[in-house]
C-alpha cells in the first residue's frame, strides 16, 4: 500500500526530473509546469515521434479488407495525479484508422474538438486544456499533417456559460488513407479531502474491427484504482512502477467488429474493463463512520479488482451508524419523510392492533406520494424551497432506510437484500456502489414482501424484470421469528424470485360495432391491468413526469407568489394544482399516443379515452382504462360479402416480421407477460359469419403460448385470445423458437373472416 504523502512542489520537480522508464517518452514524464505550447510539443513528440511499432503497422488483415474502416492501433491512457491541492487528469486517445470506403472518408472528413476552458469564480476552479493532432498517411507512406490553425471557432453562449468548439475539415482525404489523430484532455481541479471518479466502461469491441489496442492507467500518489476486466477482457497488468507512479496496462488485439448492435447488453455481453480512480487524503482514516464515504469500504489498496461480499455487510452496518452519510436514511435530512409517514400511519392504524401487511403497503404508497410531491415542490421552486420543507429525493438506499426505520418503529421485521441488475452487471462482478440495488424484504404477519426502488416503476412484491431471478445477498436484520439481531445478523446468498407471466397480466375487452359496411366501425376498448403488468403501464403513463423534469426552468411558472410566508419563498398549492392538471392531460396523451402506435393504422381515430386508477401514489393495485374509436378500412367489400379484418383489433401490426435468422448474443425480450383479449364483434342485421373454425389456433413452444378460440352466435362473433411470453432472457440458440412465437403473434394480427348475407 502506498500512501506516501509528499511535498507537492517536490512532486512537481520530480515529475520533471523523473528518470526515463524506457526509450519511449512516457505520459508520466509530462511537466505540468511548462506552458501549454511546450506541453503540446511534448505530447506531439510522445505520440508521433517516439518509435511505437504498432503505430507504424499499416497492414489490414485479409479478413477485414471489405470493412468500411479498420482501427489499426489505438492507445488510450489516463493519468491520475494529485499535487498542489489539485487533482490532475490527463486523458490521451491516440488512434490510427484505415479508411477503406467513401463512407469512412466522409466520416473522418470533419472533426470537432473543445477549446480550452476555465470555470469562473475564485473557488472550485476547473481548468481544462485540450491538445489535438491530425495527420494523414497516404498509401505510399507519405504523411501530411493537418494545420490546426485552419480550425474554425464556434462560440456557444448560454446565459453566463460560454464554450468554444473548434471544427476542422481534413483536407486531401481519400480512400485507402490512414487517419492518425490524437486528442488529449488535461483537467485540473481543486480537491480537499477526497475525489471519486464516476465509473468508466471501456469496451474492447466497436462498430469496426480493431487490430491492436492499449489502455494504460497511471496512478499517482494518494490515488487508488478500482478496475475489473469483465466478459473475457484481458486483465490489467502492472507495466511500470516507481515510487510515485504505478502504471497498469491492458493489451488487446484482433477484435472483430460488433456484428449485432441490437441484441446485446454491454455490461453482460461485451468484453470490457470497468474502472475508476479516486483520491483520498491520507489523513482520512478508513472505516470511520462520519468521516469517509462509502467507496472507502474495504481495504484501501493501490489497485483493487473485486469487492468482498463482506463489504456488503459492512455497508449495511455503516449505513445504520453513519449519521452524516448521504445515503443514510436515518439521518436528519430524511427526518421529515419518517415523521410524515409515521404521522400518516398513526392516523390510519391503531398502534396496539393493526394488520401488518396493510401497514407495510400503506407506508410504501404514502412514501411514494410524499416523495413525489416533495420533489415537485422542490422543482417548482427551482431549488429555492425553504430548507424546512426540503428533503433530498428518496433513491434506493435512502428509501429503504426510511421504510426500514418506520417498519422497525411499528414492529414489522425486515431484512436488507442487495443485488445487481441484469442490465448493469452480475453480482459476482460488482465493483461500484452505483451497480448495487438495495431491496427491502419485509415480513409482516409471517408473510414475505419484497420492496424495490420506490422512486420509479417498482411496486411491492413485483420485481422489475431487471432484478428477476438474480443472485443476491440477504443481510439478516431480524431472525425468522421476528427477533431483532442487534449486531446486524448474518449474510447469506439467495436467488430472487423469477417473474412469471402470471405476475404481469392484462385483460383487454374489445367491442366492435359494425352498423353498416359503408360507415366507419365503432370500437370500444377496455383494459384491465393487474399486478406487475400495471407497473409497466404506470411507467408508460407517468413517463411525462420525467420529460417534465428535464424542462426544469418551466417549473418556475408554478411559483405563485414569493414572500407571502415568513420564509423566503412560499408556494400556494394553486400553482401546483395547475401543474397537476397538465400532468393528467399529459398522461392521457401518453395513452393516446401509445394506442395509435400499437394499432399502427392511420384509419383509426381516437374519439374519447378514460383512465382510472393510474398514478404511482395511489394505493390501488389495478388499473382500468379504455377508449373509443372509429375505424375505416376494417371491412373490405368482395361482391356482396365483406372481408373483416379481425386481426388488427387483436395484434400489433408493427411487430417486426423481418427478423434476423440468428443472433450473436443471448437476447432480452419484453416478457414475461400474459395478455388475454376478448373481442366481440356485433354485425349488422342480415349478416353472418360461417368460417369461425378458421380462427381457432393454438401455438406453444418454449418461449410462449398463443391460444385463439372463436364462436358465433346471434349476430355476434366472439374471439378470445391468450398470449403468454414465458421468459425474459434467452440464450442465443433459442432465437428461432422466439421468432416462431413472434410470428404466431403476427399471424394473429393478420386474421380475417368472411361476413356474408344470411
Amino acid at each position, binding site marked *: 500500500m502506498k500512501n506516501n504523502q509528499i511535498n507537492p512542489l517536490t512532486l512537481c520537480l520530480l515529475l520533471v526530473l523523473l528518470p526515463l522508464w524506457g526509450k519511449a517518452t512516457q505520459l508520466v514524464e509530462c511537466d505540468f509546469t511548462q506552458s501549454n505550447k511546450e506541453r503540446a510539443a511534448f505530447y506531439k513528440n510522445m505520440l508521433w515521434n517516439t518509435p511505437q511499432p504498432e503505430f507504424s503497422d499499416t497492414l489490414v488483415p485479409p479478413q477485414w479488407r471489405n470493412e*468500411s474502416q479498420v482501427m489499426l492501433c489505438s492507445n488510450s491512457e489516463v493519468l491520475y495525479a494529485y499535487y498542489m491541492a489539485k487533482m490532475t487528469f490527463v486523458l490521451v486517445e491516440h488512434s490510427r484508422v484505415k479508411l477503406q470506403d*467513401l*463512407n469512412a*472518408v*466522409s466520416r473522418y*472528413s*470533419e472533426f470537432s474538438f473543445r477549446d480550452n476552458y476555465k470555470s469562473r469564480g475564485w473557488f472550485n476552479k476547473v481548468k481544462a486544456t485540450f491538445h489535438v493532432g491530425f495527420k494523414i498517411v497516404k498509401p505510399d507512406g507519405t504523411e501530411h499533417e493537418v494545420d490546426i490553425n485552419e480550425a*474554425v471557432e*464556434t*462560440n*456557444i*453562449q*448560454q*446565459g453566463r456559460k460560454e464554450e468554444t*468548439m473548434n*471544427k476542422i*475539415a481534413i*483536407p*486531401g*482525404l*481519400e480512400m485507402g488513407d490512414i487517419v492518425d489523430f490524437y486528442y488529449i484532455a488535461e483537467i485540473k481541479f481543486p480537491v480537499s479531502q477526497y475525489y471519486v471518479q464516476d465509473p468508466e466502461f471501456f469496451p474492447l469491441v466497436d462498430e469496426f474491427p480493431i487490430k491492436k489496442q492499449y489502455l494504460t492507467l497511471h496512478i499517482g500518489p494518494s490515488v487508488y484504482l478500482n478496475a475489473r476486466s469483465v466478459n473475457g477482457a484481458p486483465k490489467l497488468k502492472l507495466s511500470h512502477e516507481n515510487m510515485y507512479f504505478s502504471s497498469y496496462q491492458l493489451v488487446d488485439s484482433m477484435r472483430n467488429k460488433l456484428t449485432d448492435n441490437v441484441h446485446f447488453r454491454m455490461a453482460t455481453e461485451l468484453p470490457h474493463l470497468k474502472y475508476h480512480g479516486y483520491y483520498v487524503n491520507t489523513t482520512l482514516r478508513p472505516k470511520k463512520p462520519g468521516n469517509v464515504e462509502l467507496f472507502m469500504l474495504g481495504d484501501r489498496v493501490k489497485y483493487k479488482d473485486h469487492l468482498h461480499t463482506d463489504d456488503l455487510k459492512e455497508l449495511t452496518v455503516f449505513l445504520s451508524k453513519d449519521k452524516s452519510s448521504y445515503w443514510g436514511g436515518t439521518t436528519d435530512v430524511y427526518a421529515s419523510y419518517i415523521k410524515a409517514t409515521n404521522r400518516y400511519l398513526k392516523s390510519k392504524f391503531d398502534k396496539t392492533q393493526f394488520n401488518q401487511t396493510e401497514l407495510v403497503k400503506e407506508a410504501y404508497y404514502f412514501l411514494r406520494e410524499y416523495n413525489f410531491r416533495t420533489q415537485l415542490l422542490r422543482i417548482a421552486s427551482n431549488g429555492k424551497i425553504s430548507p424546512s420543507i426540503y428533503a433530498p429525493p428518496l433513491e434506493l438506499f435512502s428509501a429503504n432506510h426510511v421504510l426500514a426505520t418506520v417498519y422497525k418503529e411499528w414492529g414489522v421485521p425486515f431484512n436488507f437484500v442487495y443485488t445487481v441488475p441484469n442490465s448493469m452487471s452480475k453480482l459476482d462482478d460488482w465493483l461500484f456502489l452505483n451497480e448495487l440495488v438495495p431491496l427491502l424484504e419485509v415480513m409482516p404477519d409471517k408473510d414475505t414482501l419484497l420492496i424495490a426502488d420506490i422512486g420509479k416503476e417498482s411496486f411491492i412484491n413485483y420485481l422489475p424484470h431487471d432484478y428477476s431471478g438474480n443472485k443476491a445477498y440477504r443481510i439478516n436484520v431480524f431472525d425468522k421469528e421476528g427477533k431483532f439481531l442487534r449486531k446486524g445478523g448474518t449474510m447469506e446468498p439467495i436467488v430472487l424470485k423469477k417473474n412469471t407471466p402470471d405476475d404481469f397480466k392484462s385483460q383487454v375487452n374489445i367491442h366492435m360495432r359494425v352498423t353498416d359496411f359503408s360507415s366507419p366501425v365503432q370500437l370500444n376498448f377496455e383494459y384491465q391491468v393487474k399486478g406487475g403488468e400495471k407497473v409497466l403501464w404506470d411507467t408508460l403513463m407517468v413517463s411525462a413526469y420525467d420529460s417534465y423534469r428535464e424542462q426544469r*426552468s*418551466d417549473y*418556475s*411558472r*408554478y*411559483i*405563485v*407568489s414569493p414572500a407571502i410566508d415568513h420564509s423566503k419563498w412560499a408556494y400556494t398549492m394553486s*400553482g401546483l394544482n*395547475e401543474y397537476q392538471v397538465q400532468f393528467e392531460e399529459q398522461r392521457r396523451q401518453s395513452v393516446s399516443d401509445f394506442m395509435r402506435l400499437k394499432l399502427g393504422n*392511420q*384509419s383509426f381515430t381516437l374519439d374519447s379515452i378514460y383512465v382510472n386508477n393510474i398514478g404511482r401514489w395511489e394505493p390501488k393495485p389495478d388499473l382500468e382504462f379504455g377508449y373509443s374509436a372509429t375505424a*375505416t*378500412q376494417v371491412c*373490405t367489400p*368482395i*361482391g356482396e360479402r365483406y*372481408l373483416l379484418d379481425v*386481426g388488427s383489433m387483436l395484434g400489433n*401490426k*408493427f*411487430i*417486426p*416480421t*423481418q427478423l*434476423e435468422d440468428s443472433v450473436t448474443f443471448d437476447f432480452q425480450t419484453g416478457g414475461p407477460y400474459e395478455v388475454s383479449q376478448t373481442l366481440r364483434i356485433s354485425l349488422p342485421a342480415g349478416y353472418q359469419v360461417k*368460417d369461425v373454425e*378458421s380462427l381457432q389456433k393454438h401455438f406453444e413452444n418454449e418461449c410462449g403460448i398463443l391460444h385463439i378460440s372463436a364462436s358465433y352466435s346471434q349476430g355476434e362473433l366472439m374471439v378470445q385470445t391468450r398470449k403468454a411470453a414465458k421468459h425474459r432472457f434467452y440464450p442465443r440458440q433459442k432465437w428461432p423458437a422466439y421468432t416462431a412465437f413472434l410470428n404466431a403473434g*403476427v*399471424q394473429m394480427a*393478420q386474421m*380475417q373472416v*368472411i361476413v356474408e348475407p344470411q
Partner: protein
Amino acid sequence: MTILELKSTKIRDLYGPDYKGAFSCSLRCLLGCILLCLCVPMLMATEPSIETLRKTYPDNTYVIKKADVKVFIDMDGSTHIPRVRRIMQLEFLSLKNNTRVGNTFYHTNNSTLKKAKGAKFTLTSGDVNDDMIFHSDLQFASFSKVLKQAGELALLELTEEFKDFRFYTAETFAYPVPTLSKTVTIKVDSSIHLNTHLFNTEALELKQTHTKTAHETYRLEVLAMKNVPPLTKEEAATSIRSNYPHALIQVQHYTDRNGVQHPVFNTTDALYAFNKKYVAQTHNDTALLRPLLQTIVADSRDTVENVKRMYKWVQEKIRYIAFEYEMAGFIPESANAVVAKTYGDCKGVANLLKTFLTMQGLDARLCWINATGDPYDYSIPTIAIDNHMICAWMRNGTPVFLDATASNNSLEFPPEKLQGRQVLIENGESYVITHVPLLQIISNKAQYNFKMAVQSQRLSGNMEATFYGNRRAAMESFLKQTNATEKDVINHAIMNRSVELKWENQDNLTFEGDSVLAYASAVQFTGHCHRYGDEMFVKLCPMQNLELVQYDSARYCDVDLQLRDYIVYEVDLKIPDGYRVKSIPDSITVPSPVGSIAYAYTVTDENTVRYRRTYSCNKTVLKKEEIPDWNAFVQSAKGEDNKRLVFTKIKP
C-alpha cells in the same frame, strides 16, 4: 408659451426641421387631446380580452400584442454610401399566469444585434450550429422572461445595424407566436431608390402606405398589418419564404452628394455584375491541374464520356462541406484549393467542374440558382434570389446542368429541387436567364415486377425492382450512406418497411452504369391470401405505401413532396392449380390533386392474373388548399389497395 407649445417645440427639435407636426397651436392640441380622451376608451373596448385571446389561440401561452419595426435607410455622412438600421419593439402579452415569453432572432456576421440602451432584459447570443453546414456565420440573439400574471406585458427593444446595406434583403412579418398587430416603417433617404415587393400577403390584413416627410428629404413606407400568423414547425413543409408573408427589399440605386447615381440592384445586369465581380476574384492555376485531369479523362472515347468522368470524379472525390462566412458566401474557392483539400462548398465544386471542362476545351459556365423553392425569380434582382451555384456545360449551345454537390445524380438527371427553376448562367460580360429542364416524371420511375404464386396463406415468388433518374440517385445515396448489406436498410429503402412483404435474400443489388439501380430478391406476401370454402381471396397490392400519408388540413404550409414520382407495381400471379378466377376488382383510376393511381387487373392467359398499380405524382409541392382532396384520395387509394380478387375451385 404654454406647456403644450413647449412640448411641441421639443418634439420639433427632436425630429428636426422636417417635422411637420400637428402641434401648431395649443388649441389644436387641446382639441386633439379631447378627441383622444374620447377615442381611447372606444379603442380599448375593441381590444380583445385575455379570455377571447385564449380562445382564439388555444395553443399559445402568449402572443405578441404589438410589433413595431422601424427601418432607417440613409446616407452615411462619412462614407457617402447607404446604411441600414432596424429598431424592433416587441410587446409580449401573456395569456396565462407564470408564462415564459421570448423570441430568438437570427442574423449573420453582416449585421450586429444589440438591445436598446437602458433596456432591462438579458439577451443571450451565440453562433447557430447547423450540422448540414460546416461553418455558418449565422448567429442568434435570444430573449426570454417569465410573466407572472395573465395579461402582463413585456417589452423588448432591439437594434440591428448592417455592415453593408446590400445585405438587408427582406423583412419577415411572422414570429413563432401570433402577432396581433405589426407595423413596419421603412424610412428611406430620398437619394436612395428602394422597392419593396410583398409575398404571401393575400390572406393578411395589410395596409401599405407611402408618404414623404417635409421637403421630401425622406420617403416613408408603412406596412401595417393585423393578426399575423405564427411560424409553425410543420412536417414536410416547403420553405418559410414560400409560405409566410414577407417583403423582399430591393435597393435599386442611390445618389451621392455630388449628384452621381450609383446603381445597386436596379437591373439583373447589376446583380450579375455584383456576382461576377466576386467570382472574378477566384484564380485557378490550370497548369497544376492538368496532370490530374489527364488521369481522369485518360482513354475516354468521346466528349460526353469526358464530361461524365469529370462530373463523376468531382462527385466522388470532392466532399461537399458548406462554408458560409461573409463574402466567402459569394467567392468560390480556387479549383486548386478544392482539389488539394478534397472538399469544397457548392461554389467551389462548381468552379472546379467549370475549370476541368474549360481545360478540355469545352464551353462551361457558372450558374446561380435558388435551390430551396423560394418564390422569386430574376425579375426582382436582389442577392436573396439565388442561394446555390452549379455548373453548366454548353453542349452545342444548350446547357447541361451539373450539380456536383448531388453526389449520385448522373449527367442526364439534374437534382429534382433544381428542375424547372430559373437559372442565371454567366456569359462573359453578359448573362443568360433560362430554366433547368423539367424532365418527364417517368424519368424518376421505380418499377417493381413480381412473379408470385399462392402458397398456403401467403404469396411467394420473386421480385425485381429497378430505379431510374432521381429515384435511383436518392436510393443510391441512402444505400451508400448506410450499409447496404443490412437487411433493415434494404427493407427501409426499397420495400418501404412493409410488414407484409418478406424477402428471402438480398444479394442481388446491381448498379447498371450510372442511370439504373436494380435489385432482385425472393419475396413473400404474408397474410395476403384467405381461404373460405371453395374460394380463395387474394390481395395483390404488395406493400404499404409511404406516399399515402394524410396531412392535417388545418396546416399552414404547403407540403414538400421532395420528388415527382412514377412508381409501378406489376404483379403476375399464377392462378393456383384447380382454381379459376371468379371475380377481379374493377380497373380504376383514383385521381389526386398531384397525379393519380391507376389500378388494372387483367387475366393475361389461362394461368396468370396481372395486377398493375401505377402511382404518379406530377408535382413536388402539395398546396395546402389541395390537402382535403389529397386526404380523400389517400382514403380511396387505401380502399383500392385492400381489394381482393377471388378464385374458386374448378368443379370436376
